[in-house]
């Protein structure tokens, strides 16, 4: 006989599933004997539990709950004492298959049913196959999206690559060097961007957004908004005269606001497509109705159309890969660090741009200063700092902000420390960390190397930054040396964490995929299906699924492409697990279970 134990309270993971309903459902599953809540059984007394198992003549125990594995070791122990096989304690983890809230109670029931019958949910909930449209949509033109697009395009299949901003490249294009090999980000990324740009199978839709998705797996109709670029991609020759003459300025997005750009601009010199665009929010003509200098100076007639309107298009695709990436944590949220208050407190992303040869200071680190109009920017005119503090875990690993670890900050902080030393040999660099997470290939060795470069690496989270003697005072405890540190430095670098994009929830809703509590997209199975979702034909790749470094994001980009290519090679695609009715799952589980019994 099989017994079911529900573990309702699950160590902080809250599940809003209606356990009472599941409890009564469980009683009706064939072959199931007693059903308990974990509070009804002696969960802290193994002998008593074993006696109960014997008394009820249980041969199998299903532990059900959000993450029931937490109590499994106790029950395996009890089973052994009762003289049973420890492998007969099985888990019905609702979270494992995404049944995290009550709207998915049918899926939770399906999971229970399958496990109780000795079938895994993944086997029984195998959706039917249907025809697939050969084209693919990739949302997001960062490194993960680029990689996915190239994989598919190199397999001779058409890809639409939609990118919100005016250029491909995403965050990686902003970085100076990449850890741990220190090869420059642009050197390795731009060839890929160019390859995408030139690929006959890839249609790039920059400055565009996905506005609506209808249809079903294998055949999605996607509505795409092409925001008015106001510069004609086909005829723009990229001469740059317009930018030179344009009178309006705004903070440069690509440079993270470290400098200003014109209203008509090219995001960065190696942008793909390498064509100009007009930012409607800062263009004098758009705002005030007069100016038009760019049109006058443009050597190509009709290239610039200041009155261009947004346009919509619709495409039909079989698969969609979501690779929308992340947004950096807003350092201003942590008041104690004084970002926004003290000009010399900067974010890691700002420093990346400063160090970058193509950045606002030509690769040198200068103080932030005010220009004539009062904008706080970085320019070569101000002085250079001589001492730096780099603060890890800003906004990450913190119950008050984001609980999760952002995975890349330790390594990029070490990298930044090295780059500062490279630029300013005599600079003092202090790193304040909690745990040094140098886990990847060659990372630990890199950490070792940085330690030997004369960088002061302090174990202790910085608590506050204050102004003192015109410099910045960083207060931390140096735990390993039992000291309190009040370090005065010229510049503080905040290693900000990664956050889901603001519009992630909206996109998830549009696509019908789920998100985690913190907003990352949820994969179909944490372990075995890291890029699929519960919706057929929709895969996720890169940081939008959770923080990741470049190699891992690239691997996921390719992995997402694998599932797409698989469906194209085969000509068939699986429908959504999400849409499988409970009866169907029950029916399949019964079939499987019977066939297994038949065999044995």
């Amino acid at each position: 006989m099989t017994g079911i134990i529900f573990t309702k309270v699950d160590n902080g993971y809250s599940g809003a599933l209606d356990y009472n309903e599941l409890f009564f459902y469980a009683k009706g599953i064939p072959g199931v004997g007693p059903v308990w809540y974990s509070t009804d059984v002696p969960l802290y007394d193994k002998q008593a539990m074993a006696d109960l198992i014997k008394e009820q003549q249980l041969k199998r125990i299903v532990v059900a709950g959000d993450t029931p594995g937490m109590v499994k070791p106790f029950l395996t122990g009890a089973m052994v004492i009762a003289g049973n096989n420890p492998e007969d304690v099985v888990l019905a983890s609702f979270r494992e298959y995404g049944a995290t809230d009550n709207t998915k109670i049918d899926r939770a029931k399906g999971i229970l049913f399958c496990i109780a019958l000795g079938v895994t949910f993944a086997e029984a909930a195998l959706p039917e196959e249907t025809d697939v449209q050969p084209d693919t949509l990739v949302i997001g033109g960062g490194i993960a999206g680029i990689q996915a697009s190239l994989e598919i395009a190199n397999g001779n299949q058409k890809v639409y690559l939609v990118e919100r901003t005016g250029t491909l490249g995403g965050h990686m294009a902003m970085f100076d060097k990449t850890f741990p090999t220190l090869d420059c980000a642009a050197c390795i990324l731009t060839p890929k961007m160019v390859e995408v740009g030139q690929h006959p199978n890839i249609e790039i839709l920059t400055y565009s957004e996905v506005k609506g998705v209808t249809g079903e797996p294998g055949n999605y109709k996607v509505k795409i908004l092409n925001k008015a670029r106001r510069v004609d991609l086909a005829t723009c020759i990229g001469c740059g005269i317009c930018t030179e003459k344009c009178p309006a300025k705004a903070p440069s997005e690509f440079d993270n606001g470290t400098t200003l750009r014109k209203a008509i601009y090219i995001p960065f010199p190696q942008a793909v497509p390498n064509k100009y665009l007009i930012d409607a929010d800062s263009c004098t003509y758009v705002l005030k109705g007069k100016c038009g200098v760019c049109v006058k100076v443009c050597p190509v007639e009709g290239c610039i159309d200041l009155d261009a309107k947004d346009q919509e298009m619709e495409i039909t695709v079989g698969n969609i890969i979501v690779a929308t990436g992340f947004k950096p944590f807003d350092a201003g949220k942590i008041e104690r660090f004084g970002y926004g208050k003290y000009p010399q407190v900067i974010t890691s992303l700002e420093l990346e741009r400063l160090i970058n040869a193509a950045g606002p200071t030509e690769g040198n680190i200068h103080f932030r200063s005010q220009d004539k109009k009062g904008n706080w920017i970085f320019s070569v005119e101000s002085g250079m700092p001589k001492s730096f503090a780099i603060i890890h875990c800003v906004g990450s690993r913190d119950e008050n902000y984001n609980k999760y670890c952002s995975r890349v900050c330790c390594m990029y902080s070490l990298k930044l420390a090295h780059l500062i030393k490279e630029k300013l040999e005599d600079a003092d660099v202090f790193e304040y960390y909690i745990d040094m997470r140098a886990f990847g290939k060659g990372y630990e060795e890199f950490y070792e190397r940085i330690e030997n470069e004369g960088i002061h690496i302090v174990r202790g989270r910085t608590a506050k930054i204050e102004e003192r003697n015109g410099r910045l005072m960083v207060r931390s405890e140096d735990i390993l040396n039992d000291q309190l540190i009040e370090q005065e430095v010229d510049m503080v670098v905040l290693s900000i964490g990664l956050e889901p994009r603001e519009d992630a929830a909206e996109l998830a809703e549009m696509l019908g995929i789920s998100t985690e509590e913190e907003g990352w997209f949820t994969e179909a199975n944490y372990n075995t299906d890291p890029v699929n979702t519960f919706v057929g034909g929709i895969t996720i790749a890169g940081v939008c699924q959770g923080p990741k470094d470049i190699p891992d994001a690239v691997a996921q980009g390719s992995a997402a492409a694998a599932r797409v290519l698989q469906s194209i090679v085969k000509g068939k695609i699986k429908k959504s697990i999400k849409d499988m009715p409970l009866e169907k799952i029950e029916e399949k589980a019964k079939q499987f279970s019977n066939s297994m019994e038949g065999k044995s």
Partner: protein
Amino acid sequence: MKEMSQYGMGTWNACFHCGNCTAVCSLTEEGILFPRKEIRALQMGLEDKLATSVEPWLCYYCGDCTETCPRDANPGELMMSVRRWLTAKYDWTGLAGLFYKSLSALIIAFVLVAIGIVAMGFVKDFNSEAVMYFGHILEFYLILTVFTIILIPNILRMFYFTVIKAKVNAPFGSYIAAIGNLITHMFTQVKTLKCDKQTVRWLEHFLLVMGYLGLLVITVFLDWFGTENQIIIYMGYITGGLVFVFTFLLMISRLSKARELNKYSQPTDWFFIIWLFLMGFTAFLVRLFIDIDLLNDHFWIYMVHLIVVSQWGMLLVPFGKWTHFLYRSFAVSFANLKKAALIKKLATAA
């Protein structure tokens, strides 16, 4: 470790030792690091290290550490719990520990004192003059006894733990300086000012302490209830008023739980505030009744006052939170000794 949870809330297990609390605290300085080290000692069960540390007394519970703790480990409350534990540790009678751990023991003690006072009143036929005279004497001797038998030995024990047992080797001169700042701190608690955004709190606190001490002097030594001296009478009203008004404000803030530090309160903390309030309030009423000639008809009010004062003097002062103020003032001095010792050590090392 497990014992500590009886002295307060215990989420300190969650601490992953980032050092944020130590660094965010405005009172820490080189050589005097807390609360992370206290958390560590506690997690590891290093009882001796904890018992000999003076640092817990230096914390004024401004709540910054708890507010900014990335793990919700609540270091501020931990420090409070350690202080309670230390109070018990210093107390040679063992009653302090008993009262902290067992609410019922505390209530029983309160009831016993109340019964004693009522019994005394019964013996004196509830004659107002006799009872008031007795009360006055009682107050006087109570203070004397509590100080000589309980508080002074306990302070000496504290000195033994934190200075002698901790092997603090301070130069002699620093002992004299320590006595100096002991006095300033005892009355002003001026260190609180160092805590960020704490000026208002310090002022409240300062006025309350002044009120309390003034009331003490005026009732016990200047015989407020018996005197005809107008100045003393008005002073009495002012100090009594200060005490109950500010305790009232304190209570409101605790109830509204506006400030981080007030989020968690132990029962003994409540007793402390309520009794302080009652003391001020009843004293105020007693004198008011005397002045408007109502006391004879409402003699019970004095009985209540006496009960409150006795409970305060016999239980809360020697075994309760009152001692925290005393220990804290001494701790500041002892900490200075430690600092002096550290400087001496560094000097000899150099």
